[in-house]
């Protein structure tokens, strides 16, 4: 740093000289790196693909954003995705931040909670992308998100005992997808033999025992579900030594009009028993649910879900920001107003809706607007989290600009047009900022 000049009473000229010294470095940087590029990029957007300027093409570069007007146009798809982001994220982030801020006010360890939720803000979008790629892996035994989905699904509808099987005799008809039905009509006292084959040895449940030889019981319909196969073959339709029962298969008993009247689970030896059946003829069937495939995992990183997966990760990052800003607004709120409302008998929910939210409105709108700008400019999370194969589907305006200009196409004309388009989208916010400043001054 330069040695301070002697403290002479500066004249008018001296004061301006001081101003120049203080401002020049900043103005140089702002001029060369921001003002000049803005002007250049706007001009450049009307010229062709290559060269310092290229040739004049008018609005052609802008047309590529919207023509052809279908989602197969990657640029239009990027705009559509950005619209989804703008429609979903600011509202969610603000709402979640508000809820977190209000709830944490009521616990003593609010500081710890805020710290934990705020942490993702300090992490680069790239590290966040890597983190969530690990979370989103499709195989439920690798990706934590799908593991969670699987455990919920398994609790609601357990997966089938068997994934695939075929009937061992033509008496059993249908397919695993539709369920298998025994053609033979059953009456109380009958025996049903439901033999299945084409089951790989390691798909047989580990609790399986030697299949039972069902014995007729008067008044009951009994039967067995078993793997009608043993090393060397065996006779189809006959329960033999060395053939295993299939436990846990849900067997349905249907009345003559096809309605399921009873279901039973087969035991470890494959046996089942419908006791005390009224007279009539019935059919036994194995429902399709016994063959339900286990959950293979949702393709969070695939082309259909990718934008939503990105949005979840993005909310994970920014909820802390909204919470902290809104919490600061809350703590600056006049407590006596809240207390007055409570003394007047308002419930907590009424206080929240009628007092807290209206008083917080300015803070909420600041968070909301900040999030709109952030979301319009989103680039690096999409770049890092969406795998190469999904980037076209996950594309957003800022990423599209990079891809067109630097990601291999080197199209500086279209790249400039996309940048200007993005700039136009944030200009309303710019106007808002300036208005706020002029009001304050």
């Amino acid at each position, binding site marked *: 740093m330069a040695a301070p000049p002697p403290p002479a009473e*500066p004249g008018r000229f001296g004061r301006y000289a001081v101003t120049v010294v203080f401002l020049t470095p900043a103005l140089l940087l*702002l001029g060369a790196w921001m003002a000049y*590029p803005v002007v250049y990029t706007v001009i*450049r957007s009307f010229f062709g693909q290559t060269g310092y300027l290229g040739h004049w093409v008018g609005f052609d570069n802008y047309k590529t954003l919207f023509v052809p007007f279908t989602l197969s146009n990657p640029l239009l798809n990027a705009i559509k995705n950005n619209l989804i982001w703008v429609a979903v994220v600011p509202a969610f982030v603000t709402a979640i931040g508000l809820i977190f801020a209000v709830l944490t006010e009521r616990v003593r360890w609010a500081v710890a909670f805020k710290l934990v939720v705020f942490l993702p803000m300090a992490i680069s979008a790239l590290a966040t992308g890597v983190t969530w790629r690990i979370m989103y892996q499709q195989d439920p035994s690798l990706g934590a998100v799908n593991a969670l989905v699987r455990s919920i699904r398994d609790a609601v509808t357990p997966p089938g005992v068997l994934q695939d099987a075929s009937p061992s005799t033509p008496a059993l008809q249908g397919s695993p997808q539709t369920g298998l039905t025994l053609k033979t009509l059953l009456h109380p006292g009958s025996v049903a033999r439901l033999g299945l084959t084409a089951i790989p040895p390691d798909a047989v449940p580990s609790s399986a025992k030697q299949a039972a030889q069902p014995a007729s019981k008067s008044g009951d319909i009994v039967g067995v579900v078993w793997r009608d196969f043993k090393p060397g073959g065996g006779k189809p339709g006959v329960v033999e030594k060395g053939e295993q029962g299939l436990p846990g298969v849900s067997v349905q008993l249907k009345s003559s009009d096809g309605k399921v009247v009873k279901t039973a689970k087969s035991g470890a030896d494959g046996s089942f028993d419908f006791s005390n059946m009224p007279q009539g003829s019935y059919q036994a069937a194995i429902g399709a649910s016994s063959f339900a495939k286990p959950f293979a995992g949702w393709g969070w990183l695939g082309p259909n879900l990718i934008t939503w997966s990105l949005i979840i990760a993005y909310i994970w990052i920014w909820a802390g920001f909204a919470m902290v800003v809104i919490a600061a607004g809350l703590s600056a709120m006049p407590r006596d107003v809240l207390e007055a409302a409570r003394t007047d008998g308002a419930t907590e929910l009424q206080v929240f809706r009628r007092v807290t939210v209206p008083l917080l409105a300015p803070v909420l709108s600041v968070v909301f607007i900040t999030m709109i700008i952030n979301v319009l400019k989103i680039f690096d999370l999409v770049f890092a989290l969406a795998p190469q194969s999904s980037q076209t589907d996950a594309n957003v305006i800022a990423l599209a600009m990079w891809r067109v200009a630097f990601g291999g196409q080197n199209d500086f004309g279209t790249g400039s047009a996309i940048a200007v388009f993005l700039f136009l989208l944030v200009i309303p916010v710019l106007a808002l900022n300036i208005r706020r400043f002029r009001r304050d001054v």
Partner: protein
Amino acid sequence: MAAAAPAIEVPAPRDTVAAKVLRGVAKAPLQIFLAALGLLWLVPTFGLFITSILPVQSVASEGWWQFFTHPSRVTWSNYDALFHNSGLTDALKTTAYIAVGNTLLIVVIGAMAGYAFAWLDFPGRDWLFIGVIGLLVVPIQMALIPMFKLYDIFGIFDTVIGIILFHAAFGLPFAIFLLRNFFIGLPKDILESARIDGANEFIIFLRLILPLGLPAIASLAIFQFLWTWNDLLVALVFGQNVQPITVWIAGQLREFGTSIDIIAPASFISLIVPLLVFLAFQRYFVQGLLAGSVK
């Protein structure tokens, strides 16, 4: 908050132990809910850390949470290998140069400009400041193409200094905005009396403004440090052989599954530095955040 001091002291009802316990129980569902949410928020980062200390075969065959049942699989060999990988160590150095260099530059230039906008009188000051506010929202994309060409001409493409200057320029509007607003709130009489005592502007700036403005300067410095440490886009465009850690990791992403033993620990290393900085200075960080978004 200070304004809410009650005119009449109402003696607070004395809490019995039973009342305290009762209130605690009534809050239990909320406590449990928030605790669960907090844990949920930690899961992804924790998963990254666990993945980074598991051998690659184990990561490919089972979820990281299986580590709870087989804690013996934990290995530091991924980290060991990384610190012998010159690609990563170079990238870390580059990242540090960029982050520290940019932070210093922007603090100096931003403070000077902030002081000028706050305390020096010159024609067109407000208009110029409105211009600076206008630049706050300019997307980085607007400058990529022209600066890419200029950097080529001036030979600062693929240099640390080029990347620093770009960051400094795009960080300046926020820096000026933040510091000007802080400086303008400093007590006017201190400055006036210093001027009457014959101190010139440089001395006032160095001896008064900088020490008094330290809280805002600290916020700004932390913001800039985190911002540049975590940047991907600028370094991606203006660096080629000069790669900060984000760009270096991004280069490995194509082989995500097979290079996970590099990607996961490198990502964790890249996030631990800003995390520690944030934890150490979170008060300043939050102040800067609030000053930037709520006025």
